[in-house]
Structures are given as structure tokens and as C-alpha cells.
């Protein structure tokens, strides 16, 4: 009995010391999350990232592994965020053809939406007495998560909290979006999609694609433009506020 336990402990020490464990954990958790998402017919609450984060967190707690150790292995996945951000240029480029005719209305709406998303979140959180770490993480939360985290780093606020708020924002936007737009009596698909993409980035965009392809195209355009403009303007806005 004892030698067996020793052997298992040895294997465990070996595995947890290499990046393999963190990588397997991350990808398996995402796979399970993605499966749940497909099984529930892409219901926003069953967001694959949210499920995966929950599973990984539980797993780390169970095996008593500190987050820093996990991140050392998972940083290889994390690194690709930058590369994925650059590759967002391709979908933005594809959406550009529809942009030209409606450039001014789209940009004005995006700027108004972007400013409102920051001012309302920071305002409500400040009013209700949240602390500075949390408030700082609200600045970039409506921007697509990979860009939001880069912006958060430059602002000197927590990229982690920003990413988590961005994901929750996306889920909320995807869940509430259709109801809000119906209440407002919005009929044009492109306007509905653009509003979803502005407020709820990637998660809202995939929701918009599920509802109507034109809404989806405009949502991904909104997400891309919000990402670029956010990265350029949010640091300026934060200094000003």
C-alpha cells in the first residue's frame, strides 16, 4: 500500500512540475464547457469560458495547487492571446465593406455606447462604494477580452478582473440584449447587431450570429472597432475622469 502511494505521489510531483498538467486542465475544462454550451443550444448562461474557469478553479482547489503554479504552465495558452488579437484584423477587414456606407452613424453610435459603458459602470461602482481595484477593472470591460487585458495592463489595473468582468458583461449582454432591443422597438438587424457587439463584444457577437447573420456581421464589426478605439481612447479617458 505504502509504496504504491509513494509512487503516485512521485508521478504527481513530476506531472504538476511540468506545463503539461496546466495545459491538459485548461483545454479539457474548455472542451467540457464547449460541450455543455452546444448541448444547451448555445444558451449564453452556459458560456464555455465561464464553465471552464469554474472547473479549473475547483480543480486547483481540490488538488491544492496555487494559482501561480498553474499559470506557469498555462502561460503558453495565455501568450497566444496577443497573436489572436492581431488575427482579429481579418474579420474586421471582412466587415469593412459594409462599414463604408454607414461609417458616420456607426462610429458615433460606437463612441456614445463606449463612453456610456465606462461612465455607467464606474459611476455605479463608485457610488456603491467599491474599492479602487474593482473600479479600475471596469474601464475596459466592454472591449473584447484579449484587447481589454492588454489595455488593463497599460492602465496599471488588474488584467484578471478586467477579463472576468468582460466575460460577465458578454454573458449579460447576450442574455438581456434581445429583450432590451425589443422593448426599444429596434427593427433593423444591422442596428440590433451593432448594439450587441458594442456592449457585449465576442459573446454578444456569437449570440447575434445565432439570431440573424446580418446582425452577426455588424456585431463582429462593432466588436472589432470597439477593440481598436477602446485601446486608443480608454487610456486617455481614464486620465481625464
Amino acid at each position, binding site marked *: 500500500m505504502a509504496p504504491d502511494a509513494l509512487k503516485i505521489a512521485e508521478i504527481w510531483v513530476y506531472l504538476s512540475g511540468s506545463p503539461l498538467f*496546466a495545459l491538459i486542465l485548461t*483545454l479539457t*475544462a*474548455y472542451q467540457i464547457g464547449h460541450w455543455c454550451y452546444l448541448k444547451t443550444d448555445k444558451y449564453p448562461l452556459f*458560456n464555455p*469560458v465561464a464553465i*471552464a*474557469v469554474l472547473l479549473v478553479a475547483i480543480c486547483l482547489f481540490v488538488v491544492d495547487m496555487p*494559482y501561480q503554479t*498553474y*499559470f506557469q504552465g498555462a502561460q503558453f495558452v*495565455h501568450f*497566444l*492571446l*496577443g497573436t*489572436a*488579437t492581431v*488575427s*482579429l484584423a*481579418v*474579420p*474586421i*477587414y*471582412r466587415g469593412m465593406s459594409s462599414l463604408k456606407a454607414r461609417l*458616420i452613424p456607426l462610429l*458615433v*453610435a460606437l463612441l456614445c*455606447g*463606449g463612453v456610456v*459603458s*465606462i461612465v*455607467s*459602470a464606474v459611476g455605479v*461602482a463608485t457610488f456603491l*462604494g*467599491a474599492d479602487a481595484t*474593482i473600479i479600475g477593472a471596469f474601464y475596459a470591460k466592454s472591449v473584447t*477580452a484579449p*484587447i481589454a487585458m*492588454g489595455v488593463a*495592463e*497599460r492602465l496599471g489595473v*488588474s*488584467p*484578471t478582473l478586467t*477579463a*472576468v*468582468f468582460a466575460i460577465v458583461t458578454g454573458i*449579460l*449582454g447576450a442574455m*438581456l440584449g434581445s429583450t*432590451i432591443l425589443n422593448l*426599444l422597438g429596434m427593427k*433593423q438587424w444591422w*442596428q440590433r447587431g*451593432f*448594439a450587441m457587439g458594442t456592449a*457585449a463584444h*465576442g459573446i454578444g457577437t456569437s449570440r447575434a450570429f445565432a439570431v440573424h447573420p*446580418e446582425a452577426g456581421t455588424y456585431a463582429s464589426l462593432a466588436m472589432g472597432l470597439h477593440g481598436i478605439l477602446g485601446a486608443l481612447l480608454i487610456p486617455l479617458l481614464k486620465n481625464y475622469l
Partner: protein
Amino acid sequence: MISGLVQILLWQGLGELVSHFLLPIIPGPVLGLIFLLVYLLIKGRVNASLSLVSDAFSQHLGVLFIPAAVGVVLFLPQLRAHAWSVIAALVVSVVSTITVTAVVLRFMAKGDSSGS
């Protein structure tokens, strides 16, 4: 596929360099995105290898922010203490952002009746 990945990594590298030496306020990958976008606009088309890599990334973008998002475990006590203000801020912000964007867009696009 490899040539697409190489292109993206080169643009990312250029973005990082410019960010580091010239424009420290903008993250390197975002500059890389802008450079690649300008390049595509000049060239006028996306080659197959590049769109293959880009589609693979955007389809499963979510998996890439799991490592950072799991860091939320470090903030749990803080989040628990401020749970209501966080939830209120997020919900109010989402509702008002969608509302303002949609209403401004409808107002600005009144003349646009193509409806496509």
C-alpha cells in the same frame, strides 16, 4: 497555415516593437492588429492561409483567456465584499450601453432606409 501564422507573428512582433519604443500607451498586439488591417486594406484581399489561422483563432478565442480569468480566485474575498456593487455596475452598464448605442444608431441612420 504556417505562412498565415508567420505573417501574424511578424505583425505582432512589429506591433510589440513600436509599442515598446514609440507608443507605450497602446498594447503591442493592438498595434499589430492595426498594421495587419492597414496591410489588408492596401492589398485588397485575404490569402487562404491567413484566413485559416484567423478563423481558427476567432472560433475558439475563449480558451485563450482561461488562464488569466482563473486568477479571479485571488480576488474572491474582495469580490464577495463588494458583490452587490459589482453586479449592479455590470447590469446597469450593459443595459445602458445597448440602449444608448441602439437609440443613437437609429437616430443617426434615419435617412438610411435601405433596410438591408
